[in-house]
């Protein structure tokens, strides 16, 4: 597999409690796992179990309260090498679609021309060619989500954190996006963490699946997806795929 000697990502007993208005909400409790370089991890778990929180901790946005967290090998720059697509599209309403995608590139000071080229390519890739000059409010929900996905990739980050990036997409577009993100991942050696509610999607996309429990995010299961590469959509009809999906459903308590 792609994983190198020491893990790319390593969590040991990471936890996080929100304290607001006198309330305490334990969002993540004792999250521990390793992820090798170039792995594709799918995070699955019930609503409110702390997936988004965990992702924000990985993105360096929330300090965690306890435990140890290590990201990247030597030469990994958390400021340049992480790309995030949040659960909400979070587009800047005063910027056109293309300029929204350009945002991380601008901030990192990447060469403008090349970055614009890449932004256009990514927009085409997510099926939004011709919408570059629109403002966010002119887009449908699914279109906004795809802009946000393109933005997460524009600076070619080594670690890509995706929080339900396909939640607002129809089945067909979603399948296409699954294939695209896998293609990008496979060709670039990126490490990807994908939060998703689609069990089939998780198993199809990922090389590892982590299932979280309700309440504070705690690992209920974590296993490697040993399916052949490259994967075709048809793989979903194989018994091996079915068994892995069944395992996730079981852990989630779905009959």
């Amino acid at each position, binding site marked *: 597999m792609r994983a190198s000697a020491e893990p790319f990502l390593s969590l040991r007993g990471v936890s996080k409690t929100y304290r607001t208005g006198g309330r305490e909400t334990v969002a993540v409790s004792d999250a521990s796992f390793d992820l090798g370089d170039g792995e594709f991890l799918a995070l699955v778990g019930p609503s409110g179990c702390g997936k988004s929180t965990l992702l924000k901790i990985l*993105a360096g946005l929330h300090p965690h309260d306890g435990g140890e967290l290590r990201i990247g090998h030597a030469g990994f720059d958390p*400021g340049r090498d992480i790309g995030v697509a*949040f659960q*909400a599209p979070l587009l800047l309403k*005063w910027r056109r679609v293309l300029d929204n995608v350009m945002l991380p590139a601008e*901030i*990192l000071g990447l060469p403008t021309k090349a970055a614009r080229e890449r932004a256009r390519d990514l927009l085409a890739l997510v099926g939004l060619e011709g919408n570059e000059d629109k403002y966010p409010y002119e887009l449908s929900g699914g279109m906004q989500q795809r802009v946000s996905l393109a933005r997460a990739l524009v600076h070619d980050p080594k670690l890509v954190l995706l929080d339900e990036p396909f939640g607002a997409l129809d089945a067909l577009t979603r399948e296409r996006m699954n294939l695209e993100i896998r293609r990008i991942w496979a060709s670039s050696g990126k490490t990807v963490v994908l939060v998703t509610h689609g069990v089939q999607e998780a198993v199809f996309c990922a090389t590892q699946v982590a299932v979280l429990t309700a309440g504070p995010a705690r690992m209920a299961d974590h296993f490697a997806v040993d399916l052949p590469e490259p994967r075709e959509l048809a793989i979903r009809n194989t018994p091996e795929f079915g068994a892995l999906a069944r395992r996730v459903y079981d852990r989630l308590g779905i009959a």
Partner: protein
Amino acid sequence: MGALRRHAPAVLAHLAVLALWAWATSWGGVPRFILPGPLETIRALGAPQIDWWRHVLITAAEAFGGFALAVGIGVMLAVLFTWFAPLRRALMPLLVTLNLIPKVALAPLFIVWLGYGLVPNIAITFVIAFFPIVITTARGLAEVEPELLDLVRTVRATRWQVFRKIQLPSSLPYLFSGMRVAAVLAIAGTIVGEFVGSEAGLGFVIMSAQGTLDTPVMVMSLILVTLVGVTLYGLVVALERLVVTEDARLR
């Protein structure tokens, strides 16, 4: 056509005020030593002893200069306050307190320390106009959606980048409402400054006219001050149109 339609109500409203003025001073019985008629007022433009153009330019220079300073320093202060919370906690209340001291009463101190003329009047204008800028901008910066800040924090945006790319654009509606208020205050500040000490400018002309009860000259000066103000305000509105992305949903 659209523009004409759009501005017609405003033009009509202004004309109504002019008509009311004309009526009050002719049939309405308002004596001319209190308020002269429009014609008489316009005739004051011909007064040979007053170089109107020069006074207008001086007042405009003071108002525009003080306003520009107020916007520049006001925004800068607001940004510093957002960046350094202890600075805000120490200086913001003091700023409020100092602003609450009536400037009109401080006039003697102003002259003793600054003297009189263009520069001190720009300073007075600045002092009076900058407060709304600080207040609205600081508020606008504070109201930025925290999620949007997260967005650029993932790529470790510098404070300056966060300001330029996220905070400033998203707080422009606040900044511009502050600038509109400041434009009005700048005009008031300039006139106060010219009242306190000056050798020229429309405030100077107003005071002279008050002394000689030359009401046509006084009202003409007031009209010109107002026109200077309308120009400044108009520039703010034009800049706003240019800079703030028209959100088609809002109109």
